[in-house]
């Protein structure tokens, strides 16, 4: 071989060798040639600042001509002449802005993340299948597709998404697909069901059966119940105003056994990711008798993880049957929280426990039979396949019992004892929550709202309502289990029939109120009722936001829209106001060091607002956190899963039992009194804040809390950090480190033009778009946009673009 041939071959080899990583994913690196090419790679997602939307689109699927009008915030207003076209276009337009998010969330729900990110997501995927998200979604979609109205909605929405997917080329693929190097698959109605089950899982995380079972064993029942009572003995300010009459319950059908933890309930770790219990929300409606305009005002701000793209997507849907505006969930048709020209509605989470765990006793290791009511009953086995990118598929056998899937067994138990626990959950039942939203979208009055509620099962929500006709209403709606005392509060024995659910609370008995005398109704994840409610329930409730909101609503007469906005952004720290004076009182003045004087003075002068620029909340929150940790050390240093008492119970415990046995920090040799701990944690807190100051520029609550809005892939590059916002969890403005009000809405239904909203994100999911994060500044400052409920062919100065759609 000549030298020249050799040289050629060598160069060719280098070229081909380079072409490999240029074309294929290597490790975490995307195919660099494909990805960097400005002709088709990521640069193609750089949108021009003057947006380039089509004037006309032809869709073979449309029945009639339709229009998509974009306003200056890129909110689509869809005008169609029938339901089919309306939801087809909702699917198309939503996918055009949020496809990756829709894909990712439904893959997460279906336990299919490993298909795109490989082995690292396998545990999460197995968990999704084991708790029955796919199982529940399959049941739900079968049921939904039997309904002639919903079938059209779900199918045409799905077709719209596919119309968008089908015209994609590599060049026009959303950025995340290029980065992770995969392609979107066709949408199907089951994905909508998966998304709704995913939300149900996020919102029914208020189940603490394992934790409470362990706590009873650790502390004894009496101590346990004093820390985790079903109803607190003071300061209860329930959703349904006290004195509202309730129907009587028929308790004769309930089992008469004790549900307290028994011998079989061994303490184990809990292998599942648990949805945070800080997910919550506020909503309220003020009747016209208490507003300046004489018309009712409705407000809602749901608190979820703060993500980009945002969980919410604004849209207006107009057809001869309905005309609605609000926040939708990408992946589901209809508006979820919104208003039309007659009514407005909003939701907060009902924190009722609807997830119960049963201990299962198998006959042998084959797990073909399990003990129930003295007999061996057959199990049903479902083999789940997990396709894993870059490796062989994995199979997992899920065993179903009459108590639901055995989500938890020795295979999924971090190598602990052989325990088998089945999960019974209302989200496993066939249901069609979508019907509720469809009916609310076109509701005209209270009767329509009442009708819409009937279809709603899980996750339980507090639906607030207000109408142009002047009605305000609130209803905790869901399929709630009719339980005996303490049933489902702890792990239950699955081998006896007395622990079975005997039925559900009838819809008519769900806590509800219409036009109460006080002139307003509010909910903030607190108890739905006081003790006079005849049905047993338990859950994890919030005790601060509701009291602050109700106090303000009782003070504000002649409420204006601005007052309501201010209340949604209210940073008053009620728990600080209830405990800080006691903490300051307990400080020993002789032990205050010179560098602690300034913080101490700040705390003494603080009027309890967690405003962004304040310094005092930094010292307080750090001090309070450390104090909680040292009082509840019993809950921390265990190999079993436990949950610490909430702030409310902690404050109550400190005030009632300053010498209680749990106060002492057992991690230290000395026995500390409450006073000792308060002093100790004060010094430690100041030290911690001083440490923070060493590598940060300026001390303020916003900087210290450092709220971030994280991209769904968790890539810092596409996330926004250090948002300058106040509040915290358990404050009306519930903006914590990574959770908070993901949509704020203030509407006066029937009062044209009086609708306002904002969310921390932007309509476009594309990090290369100016509409990716353009609402964040307004949201941070607590300001709002006017929401446009446009009429067909209306000329409006805020219209940015009109796309005509034809068959």
């Amino acid at each position: 071989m000549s030298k020249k041939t050799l040289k050629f071959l060598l160069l060719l080899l280098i070229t081909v060798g380079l072409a490999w990583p240029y074309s294929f994913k290597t490790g975490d690196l995307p195919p660099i040639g494909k990805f960097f090419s400005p002709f088709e790679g990521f640069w193609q997602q750089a949108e021009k600042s003057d947006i380039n939307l089509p004037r006309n689109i032809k869709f073979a699927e449309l029945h009639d001509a339709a229009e998509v009008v974009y306003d200056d915030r890129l909110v689509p207003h869809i005008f169609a002449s029938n339901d089919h076209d309306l939801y087809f276009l909702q699917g198309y337009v939503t996918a055009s802005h949020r496809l990756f998010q829709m894909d990712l969330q439904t893959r997460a729900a279906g336990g299919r993340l490993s298909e795109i990110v490989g082995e690292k997501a396998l545990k999460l995927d197995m968990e999704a299948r084991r708790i029955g998200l796919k199982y529940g979604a399959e049941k739900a979609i079968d049921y939904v597709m039997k309904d002639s109205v919903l079938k059209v909605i779900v199918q045409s929405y799905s077709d719209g998404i596919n119309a968008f997917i089908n015209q994609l080329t590599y060049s026009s693929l959303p950025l995340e697909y290029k980065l992770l190097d995969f392609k979107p698959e066709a949408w199907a109605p089951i994905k909508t069901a998966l998304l709704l089950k995913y939300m149900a899982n996020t919102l029914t995380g208020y189940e603490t059966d394992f934790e409470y079972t362990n706590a009873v064993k650790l502390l004894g029942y009496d101590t346990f119940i004093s820390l985790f009572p079903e109803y607190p003995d003071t300061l209860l300010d329930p959703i349904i105003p006290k004195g509202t009459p309730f129907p009587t319950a028929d308790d004769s059908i309930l089992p008469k056994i004790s549900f307290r933890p028994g011998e079989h309930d061994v303490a184990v770790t809990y292998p599942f990711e648990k949805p945070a219990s800080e997910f919550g929300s506020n909503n309220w409606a003020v009747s016209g008798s208490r507003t300046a305009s004489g018309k009712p005002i409705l407000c809602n701000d749901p608190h979820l993880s703060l993500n980009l793209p945002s969980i919410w997507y604004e849209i207006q849907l107009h057809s001869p049957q309905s005309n609605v505006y609000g926040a939708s969930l990408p992946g589901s048709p209809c508006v979820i929280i919104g208003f039309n020209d007659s009514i407005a509605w909003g939701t907060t989470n009902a924190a009722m426990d609807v997830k119960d765990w049963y201990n299962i006793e198998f006959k042998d290791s084959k797990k073909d039979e399990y003990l129930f009511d003295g007999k061996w009953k057959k199990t049903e086995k479902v083999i789940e396949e997990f396709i894993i990118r870059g490796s062989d598929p994995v199979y997992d056998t899920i065993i179903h019992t009459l108590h639901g899937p055995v989500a938890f067994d020795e295979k999924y138990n971090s190598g602990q004892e052989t325990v088998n626990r089945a999960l019974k959950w209302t989200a496993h039942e066939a249901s069609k929550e979508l019907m509720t939203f469809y009916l609310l979208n076109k509701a005209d009055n209270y009767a329509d709202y009442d009708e819409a509620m009937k279809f709603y099962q899980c996750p339980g929500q507090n639906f607030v309502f207000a109408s142009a006709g002047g009605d305000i209403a609130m209803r905790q709606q869901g399929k709630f289990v009719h339980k005996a005392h303490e049933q489902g509060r702890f792990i239950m024995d699955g081998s006896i029939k007395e622990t079975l659910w005997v039925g559900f609370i009838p819809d008519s008995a769900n806590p509800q109120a219409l036009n109460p005398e006080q002139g307003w109704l509010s909910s903030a994840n607190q108890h739905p009722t006081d003790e006079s409610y005849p049905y047993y329930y338990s859950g994890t409730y919030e005790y601060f936001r509701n009291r602050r909101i109700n106090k303000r609503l009782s003070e504000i007469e002649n409420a204006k829209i601005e007052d309501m906005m201010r209340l949604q952004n209210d940073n008053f720290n009620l728990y600080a106001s209830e405990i800080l004076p006691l903490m300051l009182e307990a400080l020993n003045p002789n032990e205050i060091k010179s560098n602690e004087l300034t913080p101490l003075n700040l705390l003494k002068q603080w009027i309890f607002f967690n405003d962004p620029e304040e310094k005092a909340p930094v010292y307080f929150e750090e001090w309070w956190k450390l104090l909680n940790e040292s009082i509840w050390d019993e809950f921390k240093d265990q190999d079993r899963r436990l949950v610490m008492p909430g702030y409310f119970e902690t404050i109550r415990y400190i005030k009632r039992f300053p010498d209680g046995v749990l106060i002492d920090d057992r991690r230290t040799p000395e026995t500390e009194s409450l006073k000792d701990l308060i002093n100790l944690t004060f010094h430690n807190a100041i030290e911690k804040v001083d440490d923070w100051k060493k590598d940060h520029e300026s001390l303020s609550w916003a900087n210290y809390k450092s709220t971030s809005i994280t991209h769904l892939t968790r890539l810092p590059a596409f996330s926004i950090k250090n948002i300058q916002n106040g509040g915290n969890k358990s404050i009306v403005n519930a903006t914590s480190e990574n959770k908070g009000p993901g949509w704020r809405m203030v509407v006066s239904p029937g009062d044209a033009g009086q609708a306002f909203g904002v969310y921390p994100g932007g309509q476009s999911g594309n990090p290369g778009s100016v509409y990716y994060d353009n609402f964040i500044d307004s949201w941070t400052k607590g300001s709002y946009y006017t929401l446009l409920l446009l009429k067909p062919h209306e000329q409006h100065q805020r219209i940015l673009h009109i796309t005509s759609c034809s068959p």
Partner: protein
Amino acid sequence: MNNINASYISPVARRRAKRWFIPRIIIIGGGATIAQFYLPWWSLIISAFILAFFTAPLNRSPFWAGFTGLFLSWGVLAFIIDIENNSILSSRVVKLFPIPESSILLILVTGIIGGIIGGFSAASGDAFRRIWMRE
């Protein structure tokens, strides 16, 4: 001429090779750019190879001609896109990589990535031609 050592390049040939360097960049870069507007990115490999093959007698710096041609092809297009986008995208994407957070740097990196594959493709095409070329 026949007795001249193969490695010897006459001053005339050297001047000619220099004169043709910039036109060669334009031929390879321009040709590959047109191809990439219609075909996938890897069409640049084939077009740079072919164009370097045909321009081999004119110039002796195929790698740098291919590199510069594709550096400009990718870099200039990325630059134009970035201007029209006010650097919204590039300022985010640059954070994905362990380089200083600068949009200009990301454009340069883009150009270099295009340049490297363009350079080797052109060098291969050129070397292929030279197997048979008498010099």
